[in-house]
């Protein structure tokens, strides 16, 4: 009964409402489809073309050129790994809290000598 009422009300809606729904969904799909096609086909084609010309210039295989462009060299990876290792393993943010200043056993020290007092200069 309730569904029938809703269906009746839906039938009585302004035709503009249905136009907005149909056009709206279509435009959302169309916009994202256009972006999809551009990035899936056109951009890939352009980038492949650039890559091939780069490979031709360097005289290497396009697959190798792709690898050379996208993969970091071993030295760079080693430097990153070293930096990460140092960062995570050589941190000492938490100190023990034990004061390690040792008491000096001797009574005399030039640092506390009255002989070297500024007034005696």
């Amino acid at each position: 009964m309730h569904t029938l009422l809703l269906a009746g009300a839906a039938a009585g809606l302004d035709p503009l409402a249905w136009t907005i729904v149909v056009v709206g969904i279509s435009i959302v799909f169309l916009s994202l489809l256009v972006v999809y096609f551009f990035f899936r086909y056109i951009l890939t084609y352009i980038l492949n073309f650039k890559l091939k010309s780069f490979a031709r210039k360097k005289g290497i295989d396009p697959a190798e050129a792709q690898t050379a462009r996208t993969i970091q060299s071993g030295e760079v990876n080693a430097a990153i790994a070293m930096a990460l290792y140092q960062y995570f393993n050589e941190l000492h943010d938490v100190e023990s809290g034990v004061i390690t200043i040792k008491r000096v056993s001797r009574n005399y020290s030039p640092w506390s000598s009255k002989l070297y007092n500024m007034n005696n200069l």
Partner: protein
Amino acid sequence: MAKRKTWTILALLVITSLAWLAFVKPEHDRQKAQTETGIEASAALPQYQPDNQTEEGFLAGLRQFWAFTGFRNVTSGHLIMILVGLIFIYLAIRYEYEPLLLVPIGTGILIGNIPIFSDGGMNLQVGIYQQGSVLNYLYFGVLKGVYPPLIFLGIGAMTDFSSLISNPRLLLLGAAAQVGIFITFIGALLLGFAPPEAGAIGIIGGADGPTAIFISSRLANGMNLLADGTPVKNLIGPIAIAAYSYMALVPVIQPPIMRLLTNRKERLIRMKPPRAVTKTEKILFPIFGLLLTCFISPSALPLLGMLFFGNILKESGVTKRLAETARTSLIDIVNIMIGLTVGASTQADVFLTKESILIFALGAAAFAIATTAGVLFAKTMNIFLPEGDKINPLIGNSGVSAVPDSARVSEVEGLKADKTNHLLMHAMGPNVAGVIGSAIAAGIMLSYLG
């Protein structure tokens, strides 16, 4: 823990509804009856009389002070909204539930519901709806749609489109989830909302707070006139609160729908790892994305223009300082402004209405429909995709633009089915596509109903 959160949210909704029925509605009816019988509600209240010489000076001063206090002007509606604000702050601090949103909004609700003396239309220039007040000036950014594009700028500066570039077909999932917006639009029309109001309510289905505020500030701002000369209702507060509340509830709303619509075999699908994306592609994506989408739907320009601009700042690599500002300081400042003013705009007399409850119900339906559409579309795509290149339908829910919450839900649900199947990277594709899709849908609503 999650169950406890769910029960707290449900309790909040039930308390608000009961309190509305118990306190606000009778009072509203009483005021309506008084208006109909020609008795002004304010006539029964003591009036401010600055030249009253008959009263003793001290007593008159006290009476005047009392008339201006919140205790004299408070209504049950104010108390309910203050309770809601306190619960928002509690949820944010106790459970860390979207604290960056809920603390400013919750505090804003408290600020907006301090009772202010306004008998005889007196303007103390204090409240958010009183012209000349500081809050009113800040609210200008919401009313004129200034804040949402600035938030989009920050989002663009922090978004990595790599997963979308490496697998562009995931864009379609972002489009499919926007069906929720349009079905909710029809639902709102059937419930008696005017077309511009229904358009603004429908955007809740996009699961995007800034977009919802942007559209409601343009379509349901209480100022525009309908064809018959009556003004549209001011629904900015209820729509914004509904959108942000349901965004916070994404981990509760989506998983049951996802499990219901998929079988175990589908949940175990492993997707191909995304390929490496070059810097050139990352730079070209925002440029061509902007040109292609805005040429088709120019009304989405304020949102998409800023989104892609932010992303160009990030990916160009030569404007690091600007990108850093956009994704940290700027977005934080705007979040403070938007959260506070949207919260404050939920003044009891504007917010506690029958329409607000309907908006909350429609918002829940919108989220459910959007999630369903995303998951079903992923399953439909699988029919046409070759074996070994299929999509795990658990990422379909990420087509709604609640970034990155819905992608996180995909990851968690994927791990429940297979502890080694990580879907987060794949789910980020439809998630950011959802941001673009909801902005386009918003543009369409604006072009038809604005």
